[in-house]
């Protein structure tokens, strides 16, 4: 058994190398801040389940990431947030979708896991539950930022589903979607979502993911983030949080597949994560963070970049956006 390890992400996608400092620095700072919070919590022996929730709450509260405050907007200019959390030990999980007033979606997902016999609550039912539980709610305008209003305008003008970054970043159309031939389905840069995975020195694993979804998404669209096995997964072998193009992550059951490759093919964490990202999903669609029970970390992505950070008990830490190799 290794010591504790933690990894977090702020979204994978077509992050241009020319990203101006005023867009890059606040995000790097956000990653640094949240990483530190996670490290402190692990050092204080908090269970990984609590740590991932805590870190994702922090990421939700930072307006520069597409989750909680700073969530991207639907095609009606509204916010619809979703999140999920999973405990590798018990395999218990919780998920929420369609939130627009709950301050911290990841915490509501946790409540669904802990306080209901269900796993997944959505839309009005989830909001009612939030009210019953007395979780913090605010007016939905609280989550909307100027940047995202602008992003939506651009997306509508282009009549495309754009994910993050107000520059047009057209990647090649994703092969799998070729038959749809709708502008919205083409492989636009897909970023946004935050997530955290952690393991303690006893091998307890947990994962949490949260997002506002895709810019200009249809109202009612649910992505991979609240889907156990797609955006989030944890068991006794590893914990995984994925980001990127939701539809691609769902059909590839990304998070579950990393664990399945480890279990059924005996691959290491790194091999399994690389296999899923580089061999089983189309280029330009996916990134993920993963930790294993032994404390290893993997953060592969097949997009231009992925906002990410990680640290291990033996002192290693990293904050990065683009490929480092």
């Amino acid at each position, binding site marked *: 058994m290794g010591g504790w390890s933690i990894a977090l992400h702020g979204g994978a996608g077509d992050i241009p190398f020319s990203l101006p400092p005023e867009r890059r620095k606040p995000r790097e700072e956000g990653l640094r801040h949240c990483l530190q919070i996670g490290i402190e919590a692990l050092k204080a022996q908090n269970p990984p389940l609590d740590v991932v929730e805590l870190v994702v709450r922090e990421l939700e509260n930072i307006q520069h990431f597409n989750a909680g405050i700073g969530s991207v907007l639907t095609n009606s200019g509204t916010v619809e947030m979703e999140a999920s959390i999973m405990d590798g030990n018990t*395999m*218990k*999980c919780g*998920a929420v*979708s*369609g939130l627009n007033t709950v301050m911290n979606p990841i915490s509501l997902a946790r409540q669904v896991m802990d306080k*209901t*016999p*269900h*796993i*997944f*609550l*959505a*839309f*009005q*039912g*989830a*909001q*009612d*539950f939030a009210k019953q539980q007395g979780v913090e709610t605010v007016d939905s305008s609280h989550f909307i930022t100027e940047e995202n209003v602008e992003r939506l305008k651009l997306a509508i003008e282009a009549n495309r*589903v754009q994910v993050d970054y107000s520059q047009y970043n057209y990647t090649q159309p994703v092969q*799998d979607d070729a*038959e*749809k031939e*709708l502008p*919205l*389905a083409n492989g636009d840069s897909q970023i946004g979502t935050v997530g955290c995975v952690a393991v303690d020195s006893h091998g307890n694993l947990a994962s949490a993911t949260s997002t506002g979804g895709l810019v200009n*998404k*249809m*109202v*009612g*669209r*649910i*992505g991979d983030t609240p*889907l*156990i*096995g*797609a955006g989030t*997964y944890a068991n006794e072998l590893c914990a995984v949080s994925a980001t990127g193009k*939701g*539809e691609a992550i*769902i*059909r*590839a*059951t990304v998070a*579950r*597949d990393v664990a*399945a*490759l480890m279990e*059924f*093919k005996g691959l290491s964490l790194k091999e399994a994560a690389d296999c899923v990202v580089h061999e089983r999903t189309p280029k330009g669609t996916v990134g993920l963070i993963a930790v294993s029970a032994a404390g290893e970390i993997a953060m592969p992505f097949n997009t231009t970049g992925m906002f990410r950070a990680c640290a291990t008990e033996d002192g290693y830490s990293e904050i990065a956006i683009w490929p480092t190799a």
Partner: protein
Amino acid sequence: MVGWAIAVHGGAGVDPNLPPQRQEEAKQLLTRVLNLGISALRSNASAIDVVELVVRELETDPLFNSGRGSALTEKGTVEMEASIMDGTKRRCGAVSGLTTVKNPISLARLVMDKSPHSYLAFAGAEDFARKQGVELVENDYFITPENVGMLKLAKEANTILFDYRVPISGYDTCGAEVESPIVMNGLPISVYAPETVGCVVVDREGRCAAATSTGGLMNKMTGRIGDSPLIGAGTYACEVCGVSCTGEGEAIIRGTLAREVAAVMEYKGLGLQEAVDFVINDRLDEGFAGLIAVSNSGEVAYGFNCNGMFRGCASEDGFMEVGIWE
């Protein structure tokens, strides 16, 4: 070219004291829809079309818990969900929180074919349905008197109920609860019957598809989403197989059950029946569930770890079977 194969289910977890008449009705419905699927396959219909066709038929019939005859939420309303997956390119579509769409599985198909997304829910899904011009009805079209009765019982028991169409006159069999100590999702089996519906098909081209549809848990919280619309949990199809699950939704989600069958086939090289058995025996822990599956080589299989599963299967070589018990 392979021989086609098809399987359907109407839910896992059946009261051993289920009245014979009810058993008969269930078997007749399963036979009827199986034959519908078989005719389509004989006319070279594709797997994805056949699973949709069969599930539509199951939704329209009020006998099982999907479409008309769906279980009721705590508010006495119906909220339906469904998902469909085409194994060829792993395209998928899913819907949740439907209240006016006559055939949820067809809306899921439209999400897959006509929207840029994979999953639409609640008001957004209903808007999409309206724009697509699918058949819409009032919510009470889906509500049956039996389910209204069951909801009352569930509330009295103050627990989540799966569904059970006990004829009102037959309810004086409270003795049945004592005689059947089987419990599913915390409830005595006599007041439990999940009856989600599903269909999996492999066509002559070796293409697999899967579809699942449900009204969910009786007395569920509004907004509760179960395993049926979740790709990888209740439904999954890829190049090697198609799978549809039924039973305790939370256990199916946790176990990513449908994906699991495919994963052990792909990554461990297990055959279809081996994979189904492995998943049912090893991946359910304390949960109760069942599933049906087909493989791209024309095999069909099913498994369940609870007391009974309404199912039917058939393959081109003439095999046909409809059953409820082991």
